[in-house]
């Protein structure tokens, strides 16, 4: 814990500040904002899957739920502050209920995948079918496949007429991602996080030590949903409209691919994977030679075959081989250098 505050936090702040400053010189802030938001979404699954061993096929459901909660609350409330908060709490609460059902029901991993997938499908179908005028929550019409446009976007707390958009919105999103990243890093260093990693490694053993695995998985699942919900609210602000496509299975699949490509079991990996692949998609969107989905598929296959641990772990090992070797040998004597990078990054 001591080295976390003394070394990791300052280093993270420094690197993040640099990135937040430099990136707008390379990519327009409008595009950059959505890359940051996708980074946060990838991070949310990276946390529960990479560190908790919970493979959720429906992370997009929490993303969409966050976005819709924000839109509906913003229309009803006006000021964006409370809607932002609700967009975190509603998905977290929903995930806590769903998670409790799955984990207390002693479901195996396969059923967990199936249930999260089906829940996403149901939400998608339901929202899609709400086109009629009967589907209203307060002043907000759900609008079916057309989605909800025209809600209050992010404003300075208490001042609904002072909007945060454009460059300031980019900085807002980037700083939020940094805060979430630091909070999760701290969580993973805490006893709760370390036991969560233990559960990923061997659930039975952790239960035999006397830990209530079901409760802990439910809490972690809910934290992941809270982060996805926050990303959803930011996405709603960025796009100024929410549509049922947020809940689509395609979106869920993409989040999984981001994690695999970026590097599961690392914190940076899913963020890099998400932003990188989303940027690639953006670049490819400007031409029509290669099909987007096809390329994402090809990238996934190439990674699974040649870099199964993902991009970030590969870069880290490369770094260690080229620069770190001499130092680690001195440190650990003649022993083999640890290659696994689970938990680092």
């Amino acid at each position, binding site marked *: 814990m001591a080295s976390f505050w003394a070394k990791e936090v300052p280093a993270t702040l420094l690197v993040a500040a640099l990135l937040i400053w430099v990136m707008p010189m390379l990519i327009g802030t409008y595009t950059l904002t959505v890359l940051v938001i996708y980074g946060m979404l990838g991070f949310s699954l990276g946390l529960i899957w990479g560190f908790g061993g919970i493979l959720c096929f429906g992370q997009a459901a929490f993303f969409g739920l966050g976005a819709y909660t924000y839109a509906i609350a913003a229309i009803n409330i006006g000021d964006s502050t409370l809607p932002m908060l609700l967009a975190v709490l509603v998905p977290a609460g929903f995930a806590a209920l769903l998670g409790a059902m799955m984990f207390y029901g002693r479901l195996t991993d396969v059923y967990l995948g199936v249930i999260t997938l089906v829940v996403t499908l149901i939400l998608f179908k339901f929202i899609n079918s709400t086109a009629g005028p009967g589907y209203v929550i307060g002043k907000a019409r759900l609008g079916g496949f057309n989605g909800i446009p025209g809600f209050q976007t992010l404003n300075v707390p208490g001042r609904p007429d002072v909007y945060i958009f454009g460059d300031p919105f980019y900085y807002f999103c980037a700083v939020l991602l940094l805060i979430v990243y630091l909070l999760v890093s701290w969580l993973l260093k805490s006893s709760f996080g370390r036991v969560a990693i*233990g559960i990923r*490694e061997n659930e039975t053993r952790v239960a035999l*030590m*006397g830990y*209530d*695995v079901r409760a802990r998985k439910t809490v972690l699942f809910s934290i992941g949903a809270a982060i996805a919900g926050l990303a959803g609210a930011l996405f709603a602000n960025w796009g100024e409209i929410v549509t049922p496509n947020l809940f689509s299975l395609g979106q869920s699949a993409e989040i999984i691919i981001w994690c695999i490509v970026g590097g599961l079991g690392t914190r940076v990996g899913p963020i890099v994977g998400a932003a990188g692949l989303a940027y690639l998609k953006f670049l490819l969107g400007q031409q029509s030679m290669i099909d987007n989905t096809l390329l994402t598929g090809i990238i996934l296959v190439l990674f699974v075959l040649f870099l199964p641990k993902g991009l970030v772990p590969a870069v880290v090992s490369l770094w260690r081989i080229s620069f770190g070797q001499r130092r680690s040998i001195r440190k650990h004597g003649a022993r083999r250098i640890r290659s696994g990078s689970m938990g680092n990054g």
Partner: protein
Amino acid sequence: MAEIVLETVGLTMRFGGVVAADNVNFRLKAGELRCLIGPNGAGKSTFFKCVTGLLSPTGGQVFMRGHETTGWHPHQVAALGVGIKTQVPNLMDGLDVHENIWMAARRFLPMQDAMRKTAEVIERLALGPIARTELGRLAHGERQRVELGLVVAGDPWLVLLDEPAAGMSADDVERMSAIIRDMTRTAAVVIVEHDMQFIRSIASTVTVFHQGAVLMEDHVDRVMADPTVRNVYLGKKA
């Protein structure tokens, strides 16, 4: 008379047509060291799993220090102060020895005490040189020792060990029996073992399982001399 720390009454476990545990009545006193023996498939592991909550028995009851624990979850049983080593190794392979043991200690202790306890267990089980090595990279004997460390770190008053010495070298077995004898100073211990040498070196009372039921329960020497036991168990080995 010493307190009964573990008791099963008519414990039964059926898998379809197979009766893996058949009306088992078992009692263990505080501080006792007991060995369970029996041929392969006799139901020793099934009996353990029913006691620890890894399986829900189809019949009968389990009591621990006055609590009825029938049908409890493993984490509830463990939280009572029961240390468990399963037959199939259950370790966190991607984490190092220190982290594995710390997690067991942390369950019952605040942070600082858990750190101290971890260091103490590592010292006591001579795991120092491998403390920062991932479990997945260790040899079989070392892994068994770490799993024993996980049990010790929780300061249990009841310890259930399913074949802790299986596949170990003579040196490792020697060290293992010293650790187990040490455990009995603070806990009642039940051990499933096949190694007769090992059993003789540590145990007084032996319970013999055969086809899910208790065949005999007596001092190790009388059990070994019993013709029926020799027939079902030792006879097979010879």
